[in-house]
């Protein structure tokens, strides 16, 4: 795991979803986070894509329900997380 990557992902997650760092964990899902609406979801995808210079597939974007899902999708694209 690369800590600067982790830090940048943390900033995106906390800022897009209005969370405290302490609230962020891998199990956290879209159903639990009020701010994680469809617009926020696209914002989240857009931010990770431009930050880590990757393009997520539509299937991944649709199937990401938790932070673990997001990390898994990024790993698949070679992001060291």
């Amino acid at each position, binding site marked *: 795991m690369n800590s600067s990557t982790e830090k940048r992902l943390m900033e995106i997650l906390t*800022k897009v979803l209005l969370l405290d760092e302490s609230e962020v964990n891998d199990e956290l899902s879209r159903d639990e986070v009020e701010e994680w609406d469809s*617009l926020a979801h696209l914002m989240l995808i857009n931010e990770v894509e431009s930050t880590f210079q990757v393009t997520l597939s539509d299937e991944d974007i649709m199937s990401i329900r938790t932070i673990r899902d997001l990390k898994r999708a990024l790993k698949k694209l070679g992001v060291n997380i």
Partner: protein
Amino acid sequence: MSSEEKKTDVTIESQLKDILDMVRREPTYLNYWNAYRRIQRIDLSKLSISEEKRIKIALLSSFTIEPLAMYLDIESRLIGLYPEIYIGPFNQYPQEILDDHSRLYKFDPDIIIIAVHAEALLEENFLPKFTLLSKEEKKQHQDEIINHLRGLLSKLVLKTKALILLNNFMVPWFSPLGILDNKVEMGLKSFFQELNQMLADLYRADRQIYVVDLDSLASKHGKIRSLNYEMYYRGAFFFSESFLPVVAEEYMSYVKALKNLIRKCIVLDLDNVLWGGILGEDGFNGIKLGGDPIGKAYMDFQRLLLSYYNRGIILAINSKNNFDEAIKVIREHPNMILREKNFASMRINWQDKVENMLELSSELNIGLDSMVFIDDSPQERERMKQALPEVLVVDLPPSPFRYCEALQNINDFNTLVLSEEDKRRGEMYYARRKRKQLMKSKSTLEEFLKSLDMTVEIKRADESTIPRITSLINRTNQFNLTTRRYTQAEVEEMNRQSDKFQIYSLRVKDKFGDEGIVGVAIIRKDGKNWIIDSFLMSCRVIGRRIETAFLAKIIDDAKKNGVSYLIGEYIPTKKNKPARSFYKDHGFEKIQENENLAKWRLNLETSKINVPEWVKIRNE
């Protein structure tokens, strides 16, 4: 306000400040998003906010407009406004406009942004079919688009007084015809260029509808970079995150113009701003102005400043130099573009520049919050920012090659109307300086005023004067008894209702020139009472007792109409102290007063107003 309420205000304000400071420090897309969403969670309804700080913006769009909404929300807050934003349902702008009971009309916006992209108005297979279409068929497509928009907008102007901003279309950079696009009768690019021209022509004279030049903004930014295809296909986002700030900035120009948060005066340093080098060291012949590349850049910067001057921006000088040496350059250097007459005032001395700035502000009667300061020295700039935060200090780039660009990127000079008076404002300031010199040579004020040969012309408002009247209504702060702001559409509407309203303009000429229209009064007629809804004079002519002549004319007209009482209202603001004793000085009696409004009354049967002998009045 109770202490409890005050405490809530302070807590909320500090929360807001923290959030906005984050955006100020790091204006990224992510931070705008974060700020916007966090502020939405704060209950701002408890804040007591004055009307002039509020702005209601409605966005109607054929694509996902939330990102623009979030930029406009935060940008407005960054300049001290408290915006309320309404976002119409996705791609339902026609329904919103056509339905009399839509949420749009309930929201009652000050500004309505209609953001429609061409793809939404053209059939899906427009592009593949385009090259097969006849010229008539292409024209028909254009007419359909124009008629669709015109129909909606004509409904909108019936239902609302809001400022309406309609974007034009991005002319595509691609054409299937390639290099032959402008060899056929109407290529794809011409198709959109013509559409844009039609929109511009359609609303050229309109004072409520403005066409936002989205095509030009996209060109500036780079059309390829203006769209993020991922976000376009996934979520119908039309502006890329790098283009959004550019678009938002343009819309903010209208917000600033509407809320009168604009700059009127550019204050300039001399050395390394108007010319290259240090005059005190390099001398008259050693400074760089014209000739070499650097010298040419300084001349171009002066040309740009002159173009601002010719659209009514005031120029002034604030420079540490020996006056005699500097004025010799300004008067005699063959390559100077700006001359003495272009400067409303000059502070060329060894005094602290902050002191100079304060003096300029009071001499020119232009608030610090309307001034821009341009200086090449980072230290002087920092000092100005610290001492006078209201002044807009331009972060001038180190290279003079980039000076023009830095100034061109400032969007704080916009107004919604530009009258002939506005354009000639620089000239008038120069005449004023001459007038002041005359005043010094006269021993009494009365003697001076007599020597001016003043003529005052008071007329009812008409089509030709309404733009200037509107501009005065929205710009005058000091001698303004009620500071009520009206849009041009509202002024026109009042002027049409001549049984209810009477609007006057006042124009002043003297031996130094024509000041143009400098005074406005709006009368509300209520049976035997005439109420002075608005009464204002440009600060340029305060102190010449012209306001007395103006009031006398209104009294005269009121008497002719069988009116018994003239009611004057005074609404105190931070800036209008100069007008406070106006009604008292003219024999009105106070009939009502609280902290927000004082009412004064003049009995027209018993009163008489003497017009000062040095004012000649010409009525229409």
